């Protein structure tokens, strides 16, 4: 069992005026055996955060901690020597080398760094292919001969073959067809439970994230603006942005009466020049745009005091703290996923 955490993690691309802070002092914990879902719109920095945690992107600040110990940096990247964090990529067409057979790709993951024998590797390849419900005969094929769903299974098998403690899944179902998506989601849940993996599940699809995750982290312009147990956040979202995301999920159950949600929160701002104070204030349905007296949203960073709000919400007017009804869940429980 392994835990993964980010502490004040910052990733910047470019310099000066053209620069972009993709991840802005993010704190997040992936507890042992738990799954943290990360949702956000495109450009929110969720994929960059995932890549930074795997050591694929140089950090501009902060730490990645595995089992509580900071990971040493190599060329600015937090690269774990023991390969305890593995990622599954969005596009199974680009994440598998077209020139390498399925078997070799998995064998590479088994053998890299260790002196496993040829026979042990072949046996391992068979085992991992069976683990992801693929015919072991697939081992001899090139990725071009496989369907999208099969490729994604191979990518999962390859990640598992490195025997990671933490799995990071970055939009792993969004390039798959609907009928294949559910099979991959089922597989991921099954493997996580069987192998006791900790996991971060990144997706733009809130319904998918809710289905898979124990904790829900909502990312907006490089910051995690709300974080808590999934069911609690879904039932009692604090941040207006989380509520907008929840309202935007197309719901089959109530589709006929409801139609598309009436969301007029405008388009996302330019991430190169994030708005001052609360990044969400120009689109916020309870912010200064509708309530001009709420100047605090423009003037003060809502990060200040977030630890004291339920779900560690980056909002000066978080829902429950505003209303008279107490938060439905005890503080302790709410903070499990973000104990920093």
């Amino acid at each position, binding site marked *: 069992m392994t835990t993964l955490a980010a502490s004040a993690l910052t990733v910047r691309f470019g310099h000066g005026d053209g620069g972009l802070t993709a991840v802005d002092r993010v704190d997040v914990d992936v507890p042992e055996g738990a799954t943290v879902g990360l949702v956000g*719109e495109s450009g929110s920095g969720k994929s960059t955060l995932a*890549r930074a945690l*795997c*050591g*694929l992107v140089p950090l501009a600040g902060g730490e990645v901690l595995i089992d509580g110990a900071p990971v040493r940096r190599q060329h600015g990247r937090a690269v774990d020597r023991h*390969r305890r*964090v*593995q*990622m599954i*990529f969005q596009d199974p067409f*680009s*994440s598998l*080398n*077209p*020139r*390498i057979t399925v078997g*070799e790709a998995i064998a*590479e993951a088994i053998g*890299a*760094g260790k002196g496993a024998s040829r026979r042990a590797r072949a046996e391992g390849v068979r085992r991992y292919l069976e683990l992801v419900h693929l015919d072991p005969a697939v081992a001899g094929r*090139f990725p071009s001969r496989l*369907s999208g*769903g099969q490729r994604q299974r191979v*990518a999962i098998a*390859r990640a598992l073959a*490195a025997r990671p403690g933490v799995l990071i899944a970055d939009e792993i179902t969004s390039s798959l*067809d*609907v*009928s*294949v*998506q*559910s*099979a991959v*989601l*089922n597989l991921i*849940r099954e493997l996580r439970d069987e192998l006791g993996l900790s996991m971060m599940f990144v997706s733009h*699809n*809130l*319904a*998918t994230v*809710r*289905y898979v995750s124990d904790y829900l982290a909502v990312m907006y312009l490089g910051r995690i603006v709300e974080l808590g147990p999934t069911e609690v956040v879904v039932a009692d979202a604090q941040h207006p942005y989380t509520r*907008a*995301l929840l309202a*935007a*999920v*197309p*719901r*089959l*159950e109530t*589709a006929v009466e*409801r*139609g*598309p*949600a*009436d*969301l*007029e929160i405008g*388009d*996302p701002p330019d991430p190169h020049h994030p708005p001052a104070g609360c990044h969400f204030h120009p689109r916020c349905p309870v912010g200064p745009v509708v309530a001009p007296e709420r100047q605090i949203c423009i003037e003060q960073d809502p990060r200040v005091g977030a630890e004291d709000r339920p779900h560690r919400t980056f909002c000066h007017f978080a829902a429950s703290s505003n209303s008279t009804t107490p938060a439905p869940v005890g503080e302790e429980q709410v903070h499990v996923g973000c104990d920093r």
Partner: protein
Amino acid sequence: MSEPSTSRLRPALRTPVGIAASVGLAAIIVLAIVGPVLWSDDAARLDILAASQGASRAHPLGTDALGRDILYRVLVATRLSVTLALLAACLGASIGIPLGAIPTLVGGRVGKLVTGVINLSVAFPTLLVAIFVAAIVGVGARGAIAGIGFAIAPYFARLSQTLSSSVAGSDYLAAARMLGVRRTRLLRRHILPNVAEPLLITMTIAVGDSLLALAGLSFLGLGVQAPQYDWGRMLSEGLSGIYVTPVVALGPAVAITLGALSFVLFGEVLAKAAAGGGGLRWTRWDLRALALPPAVPAAGGADALPGVLSVEDLTVSFPGGAVPVRSISLDVAPGEIVGIVGESGSGKTLTAMAIADLLPAGARMTASRLSLFGEDPRLLGESQRRRLLGRSLAVVYQDPMSALNPALRIGRQLGEVAEVHDGLSKTQARQRATERLRSVRIGNADARVRQYPHELSGGMRQRAVLAMGLMSEPKLIIADEPTTALDVTVEQQILRLLRDVSVSGGAAAILISHDVAVVSQLCSRVFVMYAGRIVEELDVATLINGPAHPYTAALVASVPTMGSDRTRPLASIPGRAPSPYDDAPGCPFAARCPRASERCRREMPPLEPHSPTQRAACWHPLDGLEDVAV
């Protein structure tokens, strides 16, 4: 080379160009090996009496100033000419490839500097650089090789730069790094095999080019010096007597041409094989200018129903036997919003494109009836049909950027529609464009009309495309995955807009999506497509509560929703959909269907009424709320 590329190479070599190139190349290689061995003596034999002669029986290509036979000399010179060209190409590659890899490997300022140097050197004329370097290094074979090697190095550098940056940014390399794969193995198994193919192709073409360039240098006297001789030198010698004995110059000239051509063509053949022949490639942008595919109007095709759209037995096929849309029928009433749901490859987009007359080149469409706004577009003349489709039909695509011309301002693009179809003046058209942008709730429309598509956000662009469709009051809007590329919050806005536009303008709409939930939010009636057929047609309430076709049921059940039970696995559909080439009888879903029987595998079920609100093509339909978990 790996298995996939060799299997692609064989068909490419069987084309006429492929055969010609490989025969030419093989001949050159054989000649280069055996030529000097067999004919060195013949080529060196002096026959002063027969000096500087034209073609004769003894000397088919004439003789040179010392009476040596040109034919033998051309054959013998093959080795030197090709060797020099190979060496020059190798030199160019060995300078250029590492140079081009530097920006990716090192990055930072050094990388930028190297990139600048490469860009600058690509701009220099090749032959000029070659002459310059050859003159510095010294006249002779060595100078010529150095000159040409340096001159072509920038092309290798540019290629290697592009390749290395694309491989370095690839997910599979990131995955291998994360797995801790050793550096040597990274290079050997992950990087080299993926850059080798294009480099090899360029290498082959470079040899051909070097052959030409070397001939040029030798011709200028900068190349091979006597007593050595290559084709270029022979050409230059022959040219001095061109008015007296033209055939003497002809031999080496033909050799140079054929030699260079063989290498270059072979390179092209390799490139074509690598790019992967087959597979139809078209972008949506291309489609707009395409002509109507050949259509077969059936008898009685003209008497149309009063609806907006009515098609019967619509089939779309491609040369080679693919039939991605198979005999489907659908109809749309005025003001109605219908949905087409299906997975990739189900034929939903091609169905819409067939209706909108936007099928890719080569596609063949047939229908026993096609009625669009009461007319059969197939029976209309070119201009009438354009007018009908242009004014009454609006198409919204998944990627708004591909539907907008990046070089035109928004106002201009929208205005063009009104100018062409409604004959408005420029000012009037601009005014209407601003008005329509406002109607799709684009704020500050006066300023937006002056902007270019890239200055707008994704949601804005999709609104602009919708506004473009609204320029001439359409009666039918076809929206093909209009929100798939957009964020959820923007998705809802676009869907709502689509509905408002349809309601206020009285336009009917067809919404195509892979997402059952999206379709159910907007549409009253839904067609479910699978493997090119409509397997079920039903109203939205029935879609949610009681689909009859097992595929529809599985599709609905397999999508996680905010209400899904988190403790239970999702329904999933095993196996995969048949390909559009598949012509097996029976229900296309039978192989994946838990209810399939022998009959399903034998006989295609017809689309028949199942309940008052639905029709299904299934021998064993579900009744009401059964457990649909597969």
